């Protein structure tokens, strides 16, 4: 069981360095959150820092960098499936948001268009009612 003392010392040094990096990234993510950046960049920076921490924990503490293809490919498939849960639904939210923005822009360009559309619709409904 006993390993080369030099190897274990080097491993200990690496783990302590990773600990320092994780601590620094934690402080950084809290600091960035309190800077109250606009929501887009704020979310991206927080997620990038979280992913960096996940990478460090996975690679060094869970020894994924030394694992064979069987485990890394299985994990990649698993993460891909999670991404399906997340990413395949997001376009629906994006489309609704886009439609809302387009409608607002159209209204700004021609505020009378909406009045005209509603008047036409009202006229059509009245005509249908008359028949």
């Amino acid at each position, binding site marked *: 069981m006993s390993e080369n003392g030099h190897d274990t010392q080097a491993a200990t040094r690496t783990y302590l360095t990773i600990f320092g990096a994780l*601590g620094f990234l934690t402080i950084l993510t*809290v600091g960035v959150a309190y800077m109250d950046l606009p929501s887009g960049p704020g979310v991206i920076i927080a997620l990038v820092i979280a992913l960096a921490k996940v990478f460090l924990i996975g690679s060094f503490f*869970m020894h994924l960098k030394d694992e*064979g293809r*069987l485990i890394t490919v299985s*994990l990649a498939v*698993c993460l891909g499936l*999670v991404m399906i*849960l997340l990413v395949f639904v997001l376009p629906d939210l994006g489309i609704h948001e886009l439609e809302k923005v387009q409608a607002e822009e159209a209204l700004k360009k021609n505020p009378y268009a909406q009045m005209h559309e509603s008047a036409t619709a009202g006229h059509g409904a009245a005509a249908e009612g008359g028949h």
Partner: protein
Amino acid sequence: MTPLPEAAPTRTGISHAKLGTWAFLASEIMLFGGLISAYVILRSGSSHFYVPPRAMMGVPLATLNTFILISSSVTMVLALVAMHEDNLAKFKRFMLCTIGGGFGFLIVKSYEYQHKWHEGITISSNLFGSFYYTLTGLHVIHVIGGIVLMFVVLSQGSRGMYAKNSDRVECAGLYWHFVDLVWVILFPILYLL
């Protein structure tokens, strides 16, 4: 106590214990991944998703808990190094630190839950409350499970059971690092964004 026999060679080159642990962790990724996806989608898509102001969320306590879990991950991996060195005294010390970290996390979390309850953030207050308690509650259950596992590993390791085969220490470590990893994701999405 009789030491565990050396791990038998396998066709994959990975011990059965480790492969089984990774398969279990893959199922855990799907469990937390599903819940986190639902949270992100509802939060970005629902007009009824009220997020409490940061001052009510207790960010300093959550940051402290992040440091506690990261530290306990380091002591866990150092316990594995100590086991590889055949240094049982060091192994026990680092395992006790890891267990202490788990208990520390639970103490801070229980204080935090109490604080949130008084602030009106409950599991039935709104969508955020439901997700907050479901996600952090599930994580807390994993921390409790991890503490029990650490006690078993500490007890068996201290009696020389892992003299020839330290697979169980490594597998317990994988689980504990996964628990840390989940918190690293939950912390920004629940407290900071």
